[in-house]
């Protein structure tokens, strides 16, 4: 049984087509990288899955619910947590407040407060720097710390799937390494399903897992990241060789 099922999704902005007829599925616990050049439609696809952009056609199912055209909060409540590009921390809120925003959707459930507190401690254990600065304003954190904060913030909603848009954007390589290290450790520990969008395929090949390459709004390659990395097909697909010749 697949957790996420995207079928024939198309996204248009006015006359511009960003994504055409994209279909794929993800199983529970899978790590999927979507890579591809600027303007390939990766972010648009992610935004459609999270409910921020309405697709112009097709259907998205998540955890046995049709979520096509649903509002973002409804999708989040099903356990799909989105970490958008540019990190989007709530800059004027403290770090702890940032982490707590997403716990509200479970309010009223039995023992939700205790569970939230336990989760907060777990996030702090994973990212000690966040605990250290828990009361300072999130806007004052460095880029890498903010990335950790938004991952922690997504975890606080007890997601089944985390979708992350460009986690390495604007980070130094060694910081990116740290972020990925934690992310993959978390994934293994909790059997999280991860959908990661990155421009470059290198990271996917390093981390491993499944990789899809998008170009011009379509999926042009789909397979095991490491296996794809060894083939020449990837370069050709990325730059679109052999099409215009």
């Amino acid at each position, binding site marked *: 049984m697949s957790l996420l099922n995207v079928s024939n999704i198309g996204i248009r902005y006015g006359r511009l087509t960003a994504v055409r007829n994209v279909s794929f599925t993800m199983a529970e616990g899978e790590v999927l990288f979507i890579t591809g050049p600027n303007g390939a439609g990766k972010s648009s696809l992610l935004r459609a899955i999270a409910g*921020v952009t309405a697709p112009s056609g097709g259907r998205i199912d998540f955890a046995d619910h049709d979520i096509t055209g649903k509002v*973002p*909060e409804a999708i989040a409540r099903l356990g799909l947590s989105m970490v958008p590009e540019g990190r989007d921390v709530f800059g004027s*809120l403290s770090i702890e*407040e940032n982490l707590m925003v997403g716990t509200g959707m479970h309010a009223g459930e039995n023992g939700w407060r205790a569970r939230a507190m336990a989760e907060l401690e777990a996030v702090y254990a994973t990212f000690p720097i966040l605990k250290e600065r828990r009361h300072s304003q999130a*806007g004052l954190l460095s880029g890498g710390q903010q990335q950790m904060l938004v991952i922690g913030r997504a975890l606080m909603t007890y997601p089944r799937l985390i979708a992350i848009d460009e986690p390495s954007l604007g980070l130094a390589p060694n910081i990116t390494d740290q972020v990925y290290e934690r992310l993959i450790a978390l994934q293994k520990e909790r059997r999280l399903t991860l959908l990661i969008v990155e421009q470059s395929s290198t990271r996917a090949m390093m981390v491993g897992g499944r990789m899809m390459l998008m170009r011009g709004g379509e999926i042009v390659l789909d397979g095991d990241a490491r296996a794809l990395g060894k083939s020449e097909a990837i370069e050709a697909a990325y730059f679109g060789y052999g099409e215009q010749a």
Partner: protein
Amino acid sequence: MSALQIMFDALSLGSLYALGALGIALIFGVMRLVNFAHGDVIAFCVFALLWPSVDAIAIVFAGNLPWFLLIPFVLVMGAGLSVLCEFVVFRRFRNTNPATMMIASFALGFVIRYFLLMLFSSRPKSISLLPELSQPVTVLGARIPLLQLITILVTVGVLVGLTVFLRRTRFGLEMRAAAENFTMARMLGVRANRVIMVAFALSGALAGAIALILGSQTGTANIVMGANVMLMAFIATVIGGMGSLAGAVLAGFLLGASATLLQALLPPEARAFRDAFVYGAVILVLIFRPQGILSARGMKERV
């Protein structure tokens, strides 16, 4: 007039402006809407106490309730109308640009105002609202109207209450998050409709509070009575830095203080122009600080 009296005047006028600015800033925060209908919601709250009639004499209806029922009644009327505006009109403007929303609210304000005109005519009517409050009390040697004291205390109470609500409750946290980045908050499960609804309800209740104060202070019901407070509230939100609640409140008090000081210091023949001087001063402030005295901090520090 003693300095103490001037201070009380400044604080009570500032309170009025601060309450108004808060009502504008709350809605602006979550939806980027400059609500031009706010002043008409204030007027509506006063007229809610009267029975519809175009006669010159007000037929007091709900206004005869004892104070402990009257006050909640007015607050609920304000919150109700405000939520209704959201539900019927503003909900359909969620994805449009702020300028379009602003014009729509301007039109909605006119609809409310002329609805009142239709029911009550445009003539001001004298009413006696909470007359107990007009008797003077002596505070620290200054004789001031009880209403002034209550206005200040109520405002302080509202500010403390709102701060606690925003800082200490889960819902307040969700509202602050939504005010800063609405889409992100929604992606964390914050329910957009609920947050906006609560913002409108709070803003409407604040309009009700202003209506009670203005009604008891002036003793009249007039369909344009909210316009001046609304304009000052707009100005306060602009110079407070759009979207900053603390800035709006502070600027509201600042406007109240400068208006009172001008009233006291200007030569008698120029006093009628007090408000014109205040607007002029505001325009001057904007030359030097176009982003407001206190610009919203969260917005700037975002990397």
